[in-house]
């Protein structure tokens, strides 16, 4: 079947996800409330400039919002037997996962655009560079795919996936340079390279503070590679575990 036809079906899945899942409790708690409280806890009572806080806030927003939805969808659909409905429809398996990724990305981008707009009002529109726009879109895809990958365990209990997801996401978040810029890290810097969020935050610092640690092109390529890897692994793992869902 034609790829265009499959992409249209992915959009149908994404539309369904947007209608069904974005007001679910776990999405709002892990996607909006948790990062908000984390940011407040980090920023309150400290004499930090907006330029310093903004890249971290953007990173937290895009990371937590886009990766919050994926872990909800698969177990929820397994529990309600709607996953069976999707799998038996004439849509390729990658098309279903892509639909979920598109929906998660759209949610994350929507929230990130709000934060970015507020930042632009304070700092001026100059902070919105081409690199930042490209990196935000790529990051949304990357972290959404990460969320979908983490939800491949065949369970019908969303809380189990949320627990696993938190276990993986927090270390990635803490080593990513959100709180401490790469340039100020010492020997631990190489560990931060293992987190895809590192590359986004570094690009955001370049756009807003004017100084990044890594080459911006390298950041973009790294985000694209991490995203592609997460997406491919998500498709493979979901397909491999399909028998165990029913």
């Amino acid at each position, binding site marked *: 079947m034609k790829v265009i036809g499959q992409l249209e*079906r992915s959009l149908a899945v994404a*539309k369904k996800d947007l*209608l069904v899942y974005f007001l679910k409790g776990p999405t709002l708690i892990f996607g909006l409330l948790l990062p908000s409280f984390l940011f407040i806890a980090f920023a309150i009572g400290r004499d930090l400039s907006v330029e310093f806080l903004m890249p971290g806030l953007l990173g937290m927003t895009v990371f937590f919002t886009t990766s919050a939805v994926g872990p909800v969808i698969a177990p929820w659909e397994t529990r309600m037997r709607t996953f069976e409905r999707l799998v038996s429809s004439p849509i390729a398996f990658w098309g279903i996962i892509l639909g979920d990724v598109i929906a998660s990305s759209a949610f994350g981008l929507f929230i990130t655009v709000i934060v970015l707009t507020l930042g632009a009002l304070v700092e001026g529109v100059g902070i919105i560079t081409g690199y930042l726009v490209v990196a935000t879109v790529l990051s949304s895809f990357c972290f959404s795919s990460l969320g979908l990958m983490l939800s491949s365990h065949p369970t019908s209990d969303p809380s189990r996936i949320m627990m696993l997801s938190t276990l993986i996401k927090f270390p990635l978040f803490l080593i990513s340079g959100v709180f401490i810029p790469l340039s100020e890290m010492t020997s631990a810097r190489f560990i931060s390279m293992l987190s895809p969020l590192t590359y986004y935050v570094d690009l955001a610092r370049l756009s807003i503070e004017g100084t990044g640690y890594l080459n911006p092109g390298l950041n973009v390529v790294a985000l694209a590679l991490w995203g592609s890897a997460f997406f491919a692994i998500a498709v493979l793992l979901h397909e491999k575990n399909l028998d165990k869902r029913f």
Partner: protein
Amino acid sequence: MIEVTQLTKVFDTTRAVDAVSFTVSREEIFGLLGPNGAGKTTTIRMLTGILKPTEGHARIGGYDIQEHPLEAKQLMGIVPEMANAYVDLSPWRNLLLMGELYGIPRKEREKKAGSLIDLFALSEKMHHRVRTLSKGMHQRVTVAMALMNTAQVLLLDEPTSGLDVESARLIRDIIRTSREEGTAVLLTTHNLQEADELCSRIAIMNHGKIMAVERPENLKRAIKCSTSVEVAFAQEVGEHEVWFESVNRVERKGDRLRLYTEAPELVIPLVVDYSRSTQNLILSLSTIGPDLEDVFLQVTGGGQ
């Protein structure tokens, strides 16, 4: 339209489906009849591409479900074992979603969804969330979703199970209409009457195997032979004492006697007369409908 050859599914050490083969033609309703755990749902799930067969093949409209899954699925309409419309969406949204998943153009899918809403009498609730609908209405939505793509093959897994009389009748009527329009229908059920009423051929399935493929007439005979009157007397009675005329066989079930007959209405008065004449009180008396196990024995030649 459906060709199943030696289809087998093994879960760990359990052979859930064991070398099942059958075909279903256009304008035919083929029934898979069996108790819970017989392997009916697993068979359907392999036909819909949800589960991979351990061995064997299934072709839908000439397309192998493993080699050309998208082409095969495009021809199918599926009603799974449990109603699975999106409960947070309305019937209307659910139908449009199915239309999109089957690649139906927008105007066409809206027209089709509208006609299905009317056909299934869902107009009043079409914009309500499915979670607010009754079980019968939910199942109507599920069946309507299966018909969105004008399927050439309908796979229905116990579509009327647990439904109210009106919804069950409506769904049976629609299954008949689909057959008349040329659709090949595969129906699983554990309801003997439903299988007899709808199907032109019936496969009796148990323990993952097809025990026999029968015409409904044969099933009807089996159903008749497996009707019984069950009675418990205050004092013990020997089987031979209640082997009345029109009783085919008598079995002891604990403290009760089961009298197999094709005419329970004739046997009941004889049981009452026997109780009066021997002054042996009847503690309980009931008519037992056909039991699947008994039907299997009859149909597969294991009965007496």
